[in-house]
């Protein structure tokens, strides 16, 4: 799947967690802008993992702060 298609799917998965409905760009941060707490992170990561049938380990999650970084990581993890 190319980056645009991956980005679109991830954007759709973010929607239910985006309580304040802020506009998401590549620079949007999960902790800061979207205010994800650790429970939300767990549910959100599980949703991404299930959608793309991948694992995003905690080690990899630690490197991902923004939406753009997540899209890049998911593109890479799909191989």
């Amino acid at each position, binding site marked *: 799947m190319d980056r645009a298609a991956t980005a679109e799917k991830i954007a759709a998965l973010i929607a239910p967690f985006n309580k304040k409905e802020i506009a998401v760009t590549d620079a949007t941060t999960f902790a800061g802008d979207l205010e994800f*707490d650790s*429970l939300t992170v*767990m549910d959100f990561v*599980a949703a991404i*993992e*299930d959608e793309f*049938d*991948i*694992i995003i*380990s*905690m*080690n*990899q999650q630690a490197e991902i702060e923004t939406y753009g970084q997540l899209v890049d990581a998911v593109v890479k993890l799909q191989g």
Partner: protein
Amino acid sequence: MTDLFSKFDPLIQMRTDLLSTGVTDPFGLVMEKVISPTVAICNGRETILLGTYNYMGMTFDADVIAAGKQAFDLYGSGTTGSRVLNGTYSPHRDVEEALKEFYGMDHAMVFSTGYQANLGIISTIAGKGDYIVLDIDSHASIWDGCKMGDAEVVPFKHNDIEAMEKRLRRIPEGAGKLVILEGVYSMLGDIAPLKEMIAVAKKYGAMVLVDEAHSMGFIGPNGRGVAEEQGCLDDVDFIIGTFSKSVGTVGGFCVSNHPKFEIMRLVCRPYVFTASLPPSVVATAATSVRKLMHAADKRAHLWENSRTLHKGLRDAGFQLGTQEPQSAIISVIMPDLERGAGMWEALLHEGLYVNLARPPATPAGMTLLRCSLCALHSAEQVQTIIGMFERAGQKAGIL
């Protein structure tokens, strides 16, 4: 200069706000005198202890005390050294023998605490390129063990067999896998469906580590824990346990049937680079562990206490962590930290000590009053406790 402590400001503020309401500091209690495993003097008042991990009431057992005193006289106050250098005395070997007997396993390795047992075993066996799949509600010592090692760490939703299986299925071919579970989860007092979970782990070729800290001595026909109770102990590769709960002293351990297990003594840094337990401590532990093998009556009474308290609190209108009592921990869910602290203090004034637990130790941001029962709580004490909860609940506006 950046003050390295500024990161703690939010917590300092939270504590200041809480204490400014005039509530007694729930994390500053001192026991002035300990009368028995179930009663102490706190703030000059006789207090029933319902927040210790003294599940089997071994701390004042006459044989246990005698073994400790004898070891003091024979071996002195401490070893002043590591287990692998000058810190292994015959009582250290003896307590490892006692653990092998207790679990019916080939190998036992004793650490200075249970925290270090998890830290050491997990960080040592799961290395670079390996995967650790663990329950999201795992104890801090398990998380720290993961952090200290180089493995990929993959958590799954609490007790969710399907979520665990999905993650195991996605791990790359050929990678080493370690699944980490607990028998009893100590915050809500719920148990894991170990039999089903371990079967799935084995299907994917994972090794399995189970922390049975809160079940030892009490759950299972021989008190070996939840895995024994559910008939899957033979499929567990590593059991982690502690002496700081049912055994009634301090120390941690790992037991295993792995044929190469003994190499751990040389490669496990939290075992090597710290001093061994004092001889008196391991002597009390050995005596206590052996007595726990024959404690069926105590186990039965503890279950009865757990059922009575669970029913009493539920009938009184409290919201509990589990629908049915599953362990010796009964968790009472509080609406928020402030009212939780108020209730905790009201109970203390009644003469009852319970544990106040709050995030990040608790799941889902909950504030909990955790009650842990002891086999030596009398049936009468349990009734007294229920009455105290009812009065304190009215006073604190929980009921």
